[in-house]
């Protein structure tokens, strides 16, 4: 039987907490919450500022006699100019001001160790992991947003990205 899988958010704890659904959206902010609105400053000169990262992963909610592999991330379209989204695979890490990605001196810079999320699905964890138990399946994807001096959308807590897409194989 196929497993039931959702995209989950993990946060608000020093050690890995239980996942909560991220399928109704998330705000890429500068706090350790799913939907907080601590803002990311828009650079007033050439450069890129980043949100804190969010821990997101696939989570098996109803187990199946299958295995999941080839986990990928992509976007449903191109973001507005000056907005970028990035990921890296990791173990759970609580976001804090201390591990926040430092601002870059160029527009739309990709942070070191991160990969930009585009409309082309890109693997964040290829490993095959049994879906025979509930809980996180595969590694975390730490996801953060960048906002550069090219962004002209103005301030606000409802600036939208294209939809985030998780892709995975089940066999």
């Amino acid at each position, binding site marked *: 039987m196929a497993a039931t899988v959702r*995209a989950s958010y993990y946060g608000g704890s020093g050690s890995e907490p239980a996942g909560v659904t991220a*399928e109704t959206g998330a705000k890429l902010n500068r706090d350790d919450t799913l939907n907080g609105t601590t803002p990311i400053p828009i650079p007033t000169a050439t450069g890129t500022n980043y949100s804190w990262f969010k821990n997101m992963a696939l989570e098996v909610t109803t187990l199946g006699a299958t295995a999941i592999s080839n986990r990928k991330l992509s976007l449903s379209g191109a973001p507005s100019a000056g907005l970028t989204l990035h990921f890296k695979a990791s173990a759970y890490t609580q976001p804090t001001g201390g591990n926040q990605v430092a601002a870059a001196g160029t527009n739309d810079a990709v942070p070191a160790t991160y990969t930009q999320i585009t409309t082309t699905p890109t693997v964040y964890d290829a490993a095959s992991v049994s879906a025979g138990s509930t809980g996180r399946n595969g590694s975390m994807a730490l996801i953060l947003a960048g906002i550069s001096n090219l962004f002209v959308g103005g301030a606000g807590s409802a600036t939208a990205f294209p939809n985030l*897409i*998780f892709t*995975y*194989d089940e066999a």
Partner: protein
Amino acid sequence: MDAYWIVIYRDGTTFMEVDDQGRVSSWAAAPHENVEELQFVNAAMRPFLRVLVPEGAEPVLFRRHRLELDPQAVEPLHDVIPCVGWRKGREAKYCFAVDGRIIETNDLQAV
């Protein structure tokens, strides 16, 4: 599920994801040797995706899930794309059923 897979072996025997008793098996539980054909069938047991597996090739079968997080939607958009195929050395063939079309490719990541 509204699609199921069937493995047909060179000796004419079959292995079905859901057998006559309603028992469900995983692809990992199916023997992968001497596979002649892989199929996905609909609820009426009609094949809509199939591939012949050359002798000595490794059969490939999976469902590719696409989970799109749309805050405006009542629930996430969840597409399932079945794939059957094979690989042998540097050769490969993968067949995906996408939106009523069959896409044949040698690129496992093409869809």
